[in-house]
């Protein structure tokens, strides 16, 4: 029972990060009907920026802020310099271009930093606190929850309460009409990319220290897990992404706790396959599977 509690809390902490990352995927999907397959690589790039800044200044927090800024900028640059130029008539094209970005980013990081694992710092201890003899959450887990909670609340506030959020939603739902109403649609799309990439960078900063460390490929499996989370929730649904992220986090925590960490990749694949075959629109959408 103790173990179950520990695994549950650990899974929720892991899931919070997946939720944030899935949320970032959903943001771009809603804004531009693109699944940003480069998001993992972009997040890793931001984490490397943090690594450099922290190494130069000795401050984790300066690095943290630098990662967020780098994430925001990278998202905007990717949209303006690459995605906007791609012919979107075929949905394959943006996917292929995003994969080109993955290769490019991995390569540049490998050239600059090398393809070895670098140690990633945490601002708080990862040793679990014990309450009444039970190991529960570590201070770092609490930090993860707080950060993801704040970011989630900020996103909700931006999208539902601010004029810029209204513009972004309108631009996503009805670009032509929005332009007629004076909304700078391409600007909103760029902003969406920047926001999503910033959230992705944040998720990367949170998850990388809990894995093997900083590496160009550090986010590969995280991306797949978060994509699975986004699909579980339905690519169109931000609340779905959060629920999906937490669910995937729990599942993976139980799998690694009860069956062994080696099985995590297989579990992700099995879950993704199951969801795609049973409910391709996600758990929050009506079934629209094509029959084979």
């Amino acid at each position: 029972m103790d173990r179950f509690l520990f695994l549950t809390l650990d899974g929720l902490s892991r899931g919070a990060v997946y939720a944030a990352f899935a949320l970032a995927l959903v943001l771009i999907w809603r804004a531009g009907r693109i699944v940003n397959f480069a998001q993992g690589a972009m997040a890793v790039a931001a984490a490397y920026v943090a690594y450099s800044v922290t190494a130069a200044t000795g401050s984790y927090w300066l690095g943290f802020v630098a990662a967020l800024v780098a994430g925001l900028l990278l998202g905007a640059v990717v949209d303006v310099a690459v995605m906007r130029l791609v012919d979107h008539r075929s949905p394959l094209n943006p996917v292929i271009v995003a994969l080109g970005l993955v290769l490019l980013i991995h390569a540049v990081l490998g050239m600059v930093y090398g393809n070895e694992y670098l140690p990633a710092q945490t601002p708080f201890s990862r040793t679990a606190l014990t309450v009444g003899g039970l190991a529960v959450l570590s201070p770092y887990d609490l930090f993860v929850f707080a950060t993801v909670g704040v970011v989630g609340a900020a996103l909700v506030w931006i999208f539902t309460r601010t004029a810029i959020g209204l513009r972004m939603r309108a631009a996503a739902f009805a670009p032509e009409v929005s332009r007629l109403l004076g909304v700078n649609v391409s600007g909103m799309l760029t902003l969406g990319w920047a926001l999503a990439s910033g959230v992705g960078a944040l998720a990367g900063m949170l998850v990388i220290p809990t894995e093997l460390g900083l590496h160009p490929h550090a986010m590969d499996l995280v991306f797949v897990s978060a994509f699975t989370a986004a699909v579980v929730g339905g690519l169109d649904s931000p609340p779905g992404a959060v629920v999906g992220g937490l669910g995937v986090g729990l599942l993976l925590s139980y799998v690694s706790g009860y069956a062994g960490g080696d099985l995590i990749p297989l579990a992700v694949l099995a879950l993704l396959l199951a969801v795609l075959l049973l409910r391709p629109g996600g758990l929050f959408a009506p079934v629209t599977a094509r029959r084979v």
Partner: protein
Amino acid sequence: MSATRAAAPARRTAAESPRTGRTVPTLLRHLAVAAVAGVVVLAISYQLDSFRNFQLATVAAYLCATAGLTVLTGLCGQLSLGHGALMATGAYTVALCQNAFADRGVTAGGVLVLSLATAVLATVAVGAVVGVAAARLRGPYLAGLTLAVAVVVPALTVTFDGVFNGEQGLAVPVAPAPAALGFYFPYERWQLWVVTAATLLCLVLLANLVRSRYGRAFRAVRDDEVAARLAGIHVARTQVIAFVVSAGSAGLGGALLAMLAQSVSPGAFGLTLSLFLLMAVVIGGLGRLAGAVWGAVLLVALPDLTHTLTDLFTLSPAAAQRLEGNLPLAIFGGTLIVVMIAAPGGVQGLLSRLAGSLRVRWRRRRS
């Protein structure tokens, strides 16, 4: 939803358009081309040194995979980011089979054929599973699933390291060249012959498939699923067939690579390989088997080229190693982005366009 219309413009190549007054059956024509190609490779193999023979053999092995992916993505409009994993399936099957034979003391060269066939069958089985799932999916969902396959399958070698020996990988014992060729016959030349034979067989089969009613069904599904269905084509079944065929080719390619390297390890079949394969067919030109040739050449030539390039500069060994390992990736990624934005037809598309405009100019001059 037709997935590749823009990526692979449905331009009719000469091979696709019905030729009037054709007398030679398609199969014979393809066999003749393959025979000529085989003779050319045979002749070349005597001119090249061992390393170049090995490289050419590697191109041929990759060609199986890129041709298979071209059929799937270019002709049938389905994206797969998982072909590296399918190659791994073929490679590991060959390794397991060859090891099993070796353990039982069977060392005859002929068992390799059996191992290769088993590898293709195993990959076809895996491809069928993924393909059935893939046939129900579109666009980003399909890409995501195959991406997961690409990331997860290499990791399985660590999960089940009792069978696959983890990161270390497996050795692939292969029989030496037949004694009849002489004691001093370079082994790489023999490898090239074997791989070329297998690749040509694979290409002839693919080329025939492309020209058959299945090929027409592939293109119909790619261009407009609804129209294809109205025309009586079973869309999902067609897509599964394309995936299975493509998987089989990739499996053969992986098996041949394993045979060439005489070892397999998960590192060689990671996500990067899957992305490389996709890049290769996109840059080569989707929708044409000829594009797959360019792609395969690129896969082998680019790392070689960057090696030569980095040798030009005097770098510290560490920096040189970083650059060498990553420069091909950077060039591939960058080229891919530029190609997708500027020339979605790829190298073969550019060549066709060039040839087309030359032909027009030629005609103008004559008239």
